[in-house]
Protein backbone atom coordinates (compact mmCIF):
# COMPACT_ATOMS: atom_id res chain seq x y z
CA UNK A 1 0.00 0.00 0.00
CA UNK A 2 2.74 2.41 1.01
CA UNK A 3 4.88 1.39 -1.96
CA UNK A 4 2.05 2.08 -4.40
CA UNK A 5 1.71 5.49 -2.80
CA UNK A 6 5.39 6.11 -3.39
CA UNK A 7 5.08 5.18 -7.06
CA UNK A 8 2.44 7.84 -7.69
CA UNK A 9 3.70 11.04 -9.17
CA UNK A 10 2.90 14.32 -7.36
CA UNK A 11 0.02 15.18 -9.68
CA UNK A 12 -1.70 11.87 -9.06
CA UNK A 13 -1.10 12.11 -5.34
CA UNK A 14 -2.65 15.57 -5.25
CA UNK A 15 -5.59 14.42 -7.35
CA UNK A 16 -6.35 11.41 -5.17
CA UNK A 17 -6.17 13.39 -1.95
CA UNK A 18 -8.49 16.06 -3.41
CA UNK A 19 -10.86 13.28 -4.46
CA UNK A 20 -10.75 11.85 -0.96
CA UNK A 21 -11.54 15.28 0.49
CA UNK A 22 -14.49 15.62 -1.89
CA UNK A 23 -15.85 12.24 -0.83
CA UNK A 24 -15.46 12.98 2.89
CA UNK A 25 -17.07 16.40 2.56
CA UNK A 26 -19.95 14.96 0.50
CA UNK A 27 -20.54 12.32 3.16
CA UNK A 28 -20.70 15.05 5.79
CA UNK A 29 -23.21 16.94 3.62
CA UNK A 30 -25.49 13.95 3.35
CA UNK A 31 -25.26 12.86 6.97
CA UNK A 32 -25.21 16.30 8.55
CA UNK A 33 -27.87 17.47 10.99
CA UNK A 34 -27.37 21.20 10.89
CA UNK A 35 -28.30 22.93 7.65
CA UNK A 36 -25.60 25.59 7.77
CA UNK A 37 -22.87 23.08 8.60
CA UNK A 38 -23.97 20.85 5.73
CA UNK A 39 -23.79 23.89 3.47
CA UNK A 40 -20.24 24.62 4.60
CA UNK A 41 -19.26 21.04 3.85
CA UNK A 42 -20.92 21.36 0.45
CA UNK A 43 -18.72 24.37 -0.27
CA UNK A 44 -15.64 22.35 0.68
CA UNK A 45 -16.80 19.45 -1.51
CA UNK A 46 -17.28 21.72 -4.51
CA UNK A 47 -13.89 23.34 -3.99
CA UNK A 48 -12.27 19.91 -3.78
CA UNK A 49 -13.92 18.90 -7.04
CA UNK A 50 -12.66 22.15 -8.54
CA UNK A 51 -9.11 21.17 -7.56
CA UNK A 52 -9.73 17.80 -9.25
CA UNK A 53 -10.83 19.60 -12.41
CA UNK A 54 -7.72 21.74 -12.36
CA UNK A 55 -5.54 18.67 -12.04
CA UNK A 56 -7.43 16.93 -14.84
CA UNK A 57 -6.38 19.74 -17.16
CA UNK A 58 -9.59 21.74 -17.18
CA UNK A 59 -8.78 25.09 -15.51
CA UNK A 60 -11.77 26.82 -17.11
CA UNK A 61 -14.19 24.29 -15.64
CA UNK A 62 -12.46 24.62 -12.27
CA UNK A 63 -12.97 28.38 -12.31
CA UNK A 64 -16.62 27.97 -13.31
CA UNK A 65 -17.09 25.43 -10.54
CA UNK A 66 -15.81 27.90 -7.95
CA UNK A 67 -17.63 30.94 -9.36
CA UNK A 68 -20.99 29.44 -10.27
CA UNK A 69 -21.36 26.50 -7.90
CA UNK A 70 -19.53 27.60 -4.78
CA UNK A 71 -20.33 31.27 -5.42
CA UNK A 72 -23.80 31.69 -6.89
CA UNK A 73 -25.70 28.50 -6.14
CA UNK A 74 -24.49 28.26 -2.56
CA UNK A 75 -25.42 31.89 -1.96
CA UNK A 76 -28.91 30.96 -3.15
CA UNK A 77 -28.98 28.22 -0.52
CA UNK A 78 -27.81 30.66 2.14
CA UNK A 79 -30.59 33.09 1.22
CA UNK A 80 -33.15 30.31 1.37
CA UNK A 81 -31.94 29.26 4.81
CA UNK A 82 -32.15 32.85 5.99
CA UNK A 83 -35.72 33.11 4.66
CA UNK A 84 -36.74 29.92 6.40
CA UNK A 85 -35.34 31.27 9.63
CA UNK A 86 -34.00 27.88 10.68
CA UNK A 87 -33.02 29.18 14.09
CA UNK A 88 -34.74 26.93 16.59
CA UNK A 89 -33.99 23.27 16.24
CA UNK A 90 -31.31 23.32 13.59
CA UNK A 91 -28.81 25.62 15.24
CA UNK A 92 -28.48 23.78 18.52
CA UNK A 93 -24.73 24.25 18.67
CA UNK A 94 -24.56 27.68 17.12
CA UNK A 95 -22.63 30.27 19.08
CA UNK A 96 -24.98 32.77 20.62
CA UNK A 97 -24.57 36.51 20.94
CA UNK A 98 -22.72 36.39 24.26
CA UNK A 99 -20.16 33.95 22.91
CA UNK A 100 -21.55 30.92 24.73
CA UNK A 101 -22.39 27.71 22.96
CA UNK A 102 -25.82 26.17 23.23
CA UNK A 103 -25.97 22.46 23.74
CA UNK A 104 -22.77 22.25 25.76
CA UNK A 105 -22.71 22.08 29.53
CA UNK A 106 -20.33 24.89 30.24
CA UNK A 107 -20.13 26.62 26.87
CA UNK A 108 -16.41 26.04 26.71
CA UNK A 109 -14.21 27.31 23.93
CA UNK A 110 -13.18 23.79 22.98
CA UNK A 111 -16.72 22.98 21.94
CA UNK A 112 -16.93 26.05 19.74
CA UNK A 113 -13.64 25.03 18.17
CA UNK A 114 -15.06 21.59 17.37
CA UNK A 115 -17.82 23.24 15.42
CA UNK A 116 -15.45 24.86 12.97
CA UNK A 117 -12.85 22.15 13.00
CA UNK A 118 -14.16 19.88 10.22
CA UNK A 119 -14.73 22.39 7.41
CA UNK A 120 -11.65 24.34 8.46
CA UNK A 121 -9.36 21.31 8.36
CA UNK A 122 -10.67 20.11 4.99
CA UNK A 123 -10.38 23.57 3.46
CA UNK A 124 -6.85 23.95 4.84
CA UNK A 125 -5.80 20.66 3.28
CA UNK A 126 -7.25 21.83 -0.04
CA UNK A 127 -5.35 25.11 0.21
CA UNK A 128 -2.10 23.27 0.88
CA UNK A 129 -2.72 21.03 -2.14
CA UNK A 130 -3.46 23.99 -4.37
CA UNK A 131 -0.36 25.87 -3.25
CA UNK A 132 1.69 22.74 -3.85
CA UNK A 133 0.17 22.17 -7.29
CA UNK A 134 0.87 25.75 -8.33
CA UNK A 135 4.39 25.93 -6.95
CA UNK A 136 5.64 22.49 -7.98
CA UNK A 137 7.33 22.65 -11.35
CA UNK A 138 6.90 18.92 -11.92
CA UNK A 139 3.12 19.14 -11.58
CA UNK A 140 2.99 22.21 -13.78
CA UNK A 141 5.04 20.49 -16.49
CA UNK A 142 2.62 17.56 -16.49
CA UNK A 143 -0.39 19.88 -16.48
CA UNK A 144 0.61 22.09 -19.37
CA UNK A 145 1.05 19.07 -21.63
CA UNK A 146 -2.64 18.17 -21.61
CA UNK A 147 -4.59 21.28 -20.70
CA UNK A 148 -7.79 22.18 -22.56
CA UNK A 149 -8.09 25.93 -22.24
CA UNK A 150 -11.07 28.24 -22.38
CA UNK A 151 -10.48 29.17 -26.01
CA UNK A 152 -11.18 25.67 -27.28
CA UNK A 153 -14.27 25.44 -25.11
CA UNK A 154 -15.56 28.78 -26.37
CA UNK A 155 -15.02 27.89 -30.03
CA UNK A 156 -16.93 24.65 -29.52
CA UNK A 157 -19.65 26.31 -27.45
CA UNK A 158 -20.50 28.91 -30.08
CA UNK A 159 -19.95 26.58 -33.03
CA UNK A 160 -21.49 23.12 -33.05
CA UNK A 161 -23.17 23.55 -29.68
CA UNK A 162 -24.93 26.84 -30.42
CA UNK A 163 -28.38 25.27 -30.30
CA UNK A 164 -27.61 23.74 -26.89
CA UNK A 165 -26.57 27.18 -25.62
CA UNK A 166 -29.88 28.65 -26.83
CA UNK A 167 -31.81 25.84 -25.14
CA UNK A 168 -29.84 26.43 -21.93
CA UNK A 169 -30.80 30.10 -22.06
CA UNK A 170 -34.46 29.09 -22.36
CA UNK A 171 -33.98 26.82 -19.37
CA UNK A 172 -32.55 29.68 -17.34
CA UNK A 173 -35.45 31.91 -18.38
CA UNK A 174 -37.90 29.22 -17.26
CA UNK A 175 -36.04 28.98 -13.97
CA UNK A 176 -36.22 32.74 -13.51
CA UNK A 177 -39.94 32.97 -14.21
CA UNK A 178 -40.75 29.89 -12.17
CA UNK A 179 -38.64 31.07 -9.26
CA UNK A 180 -40.38 34.44 -9.26
CA UNK A 181 -43.80 32.87 -9.50
CA UNK A 182 -43.31 30.42 -6.65
CA UNK A 183 -41.36 32.67 -4.30
CA UNK A 184 -43.39 35.87 -4.54
CA UNK A 185 -45.45 36.72 -1.48
CA UNK A 186 -49.03 35.49 -1.30
CA UNK A 187 -51.41 37.84 -3.15
CA UNK A 188 -48.86 39.82 -5.14
CA UNK A 189 -50.13 40.22 -8.68
CA UNK A 190 -53.73 39.63 -7.69
CA UNK A 191 -54.65 43.28 -7.01
CA UNK A 192 -54.92 44.15 -10.65
CA UNK A 193 -57.16 41.22 -11.36
CA UNK A 194 -59.35 42.23 -8.43
CA UNK A 195 -59.60 45.81 -9.77
CA UNK A 196 -60.71 44.53 -13.12
CA UNK A 197 -63.22 42.28 -11.45
CA UNK A 198 -64.73 45.13 -9.43
CA UNK A 199 -65.05 47.54 -12.30
CA UNK A 200 -66.03 45.08 -14.94
Amino acid at each position, binding site marked *: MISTFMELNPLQLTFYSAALLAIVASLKVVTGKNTVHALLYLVVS*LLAVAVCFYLMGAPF*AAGLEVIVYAGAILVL*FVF*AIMMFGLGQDETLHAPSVDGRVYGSIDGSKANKFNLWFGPFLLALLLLLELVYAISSSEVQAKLTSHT*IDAKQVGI*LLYGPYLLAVEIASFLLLAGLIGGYHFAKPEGVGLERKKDIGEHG
Partner: protein
Amino acid sequence: MITIPLSHVLILASILFVIGFVGVITRKNTLFILMSLEVMLNAVGVAFIGAGSAWQQADGQVMFILILTLAAAEVALGLALLIQMQRRFKSLDIDKLSKLKG
Protein backbone atom coordinates in the same frame (compact mmCIF):
# COMPACT_ATOMS: atom_id res chain seq x y z
CA MET B 1 -0.08 12.32 -22.02
CA ILE B 2 -2.73 11.19 -19.56
CA THR B 3 -1.58 11.08 -15.97
CA ILE B 4 -4.84 10.16 -14.24
CA PRO B 5 -6.55 7.04 -15.61
CA LEU B 6 -10.13 7.52 -16.74
CA SER B 7 -11.34 4.56 -14.70
CA HIS B 8 -10.27 6.26 -11.46
CA VAL B 9 -12.09 9.46 -12.43
CA LEU B 10 -15.20 7.44 -13.20
CA ILE B 11 -14.88 5.62 -9.85
CA LEU B 12 -14.70 8.99 -8.09
CA ALA B 13 -17.77 10.18 -10.03
CA SER B 14 -19.70 7.02 -9.13
CA ILE B 15 -18.81 7.30 -5.45
CA LEU B 16 -19.95 10.92 -5.34
CA PHE B 17 -23.10 10.05 -7.28
CA VAL B 18 -23.98 7.21 -4.91
CA ILE B 19 -23.39 9.44 -1.88
CA GLY B 20 -25.76 12.02 -3.33
CA PHE B 21 -28.30 9.37 -4.26
CA VAL B 22 -28.28 7.89 -0.77
CA GLY B 23 -28.85 11.41 0.57
CA VAL B 24 -31.79 11.96 -1.77
CA ILE B 25 -33.56 8.75 -0.80
CA THR B 26 -32.83 8.80 2.94
CA ARG B 27 -33.18 12.40 4.07
CA LYS B 28 -36.56 13.77 5.09
CA ASN B 29 -35.58 17.44 5.04
CA THR B 30 -36.23 18.87 1.60
CA LEU B 31 -33.30 21.26 1.85
CA PHE B 32 -30.93 18.32 2.37
CA ILE B 33 -32.52 16.54 -0.57
CA LEU B 34 -31.71 19.54 -2.76
CA MET B 35 -28.13 19.62 -1.47
CA SER B 36 -27.74 15.91 -2.24
CA LEU B 37 -29.07 16.59 -5.73
CA GLU B 38 -26.29 19.15 -6.09
CA VAL B 39 -23.74 16.50 -5.12
CA MET B 40 -25.21 14.14 -7.74
CA LEU B 41 -25.10 16.76 -10.52
CA ASN B 42 -21.55 17.57 -9.51
CA ALA B 43 -20.60 13.90 -9.82
CA VAL B 44 -21.96 13.85 -13.36
CA GLY B 45 -19.83 16.91 -14.10
CA VAL B 46 -16.76 15.08 -12.81
CA ALA B 47 -17.49 12.21 -15.19
CA PHE B 48 -17.81 14.57 -18.16
CA ILE B 49 -14.63 16.49 -17.35
CA GLY B 50 -12.73 13.24 -16.84
CA ALA B 51 -13.90 11.85 -20.19
CA GLY B 52 -13.09 15.14 -21.91
CA SER B 53 -9.58 15.17 -20.53
CA ALA B 54 -9.06 11.50 -21.37
CA TRP B 55 -9.85 12.06 -25.05
CA GLN B 56 -8.34 15.54 -25.13
CA GLN B 57 -11.58 17.07 -26.39
CA ALA B 58 -13.28 20.23 -25.17
CA ASP B 59 -16.76 18.65 -25.48
CA GLY B 60 -16.62 17.45 -21.90
CA GLN B 61 -16.27 20.99 -20.61
CA VAL B 62 -19.11 22.15 -22.88
CA MET B 63 -21.36 19.51 -21.35
CA PHE B 64 -20.17 20.58 -17.90
CA ILE B 65 -21.25 24.15 -18.63
CA LEU B 66 -24.68 22.90 -19.72
CA ILE B 67 -24.94 20.87 -16.50
CA LEU B 68 -24.01 24.03 -14.61
CA THR B 69 -26.91 25.96 -16.13
CA LEU B 70 -29.20 23.04 -15.42
CA ALA B 71 -28.10 23.01 -11.79
CA ALA B 72 -28.63 26.76 -11.47
CA ALA B 73 -32.17 26.58 -12.87
CA GLU B 74 -32.95 23.52 -10.76
CA VAL B 75 -31.76 25.16 -7.56
CA ALA B 76 -33.68 28.37 -8.24
CA LEU B 77 -36.92 26.48 -8.85
CA GLY B 78 -36.35 24.02 -6.02
CA LEU B 79 -35.68 26.70 -3.45
CA ALA B 80 -38.70 28.70 -4.62
CA LEU B 81 -40.83 25.58 -4.17
CA LEU B 82 -39.27 25.11 -0.74
CA ILE B 83 -40.29 28.65 0.21
CA GLN B 84 -43.88 27.85 -0.84
CA MET B 85 -43.74 24.61 1.14
CA GLN B 86 -42.49 26.39 4.24
CA ARG B 87 -45.29 28.93 3.84
CA ARG B 88 -48.09 26.40 3.46
CA PHE B 89 -47.00 23.56 5.72
CA LYS B 90 -44.73 25.42 8.17
CA SER B 91 -42.24 22.60 7.73
CA LEU B 92 -39.67 21.22 5.33
CA ASP B 93 -40.56 17.59 6.05
CA ILE B 94 -41.13 15.81 2.74
CA ASP B 95 -43.56 13.40 4.39
CA LYS B 96 -45.99 16.27 4.85
CA LEU B 97 -46.43 16.32 1.08
CA SER B 98 -48.05 12.90 1.00
CA LYS B 99 -51.64 14.08 0.65
CA LEU B 100 -52.61 14.91 -2.90
CA LYS B 101 -55.21 17.59 -2.37
CA GLY B 102 -55.43 21.35 -2.62
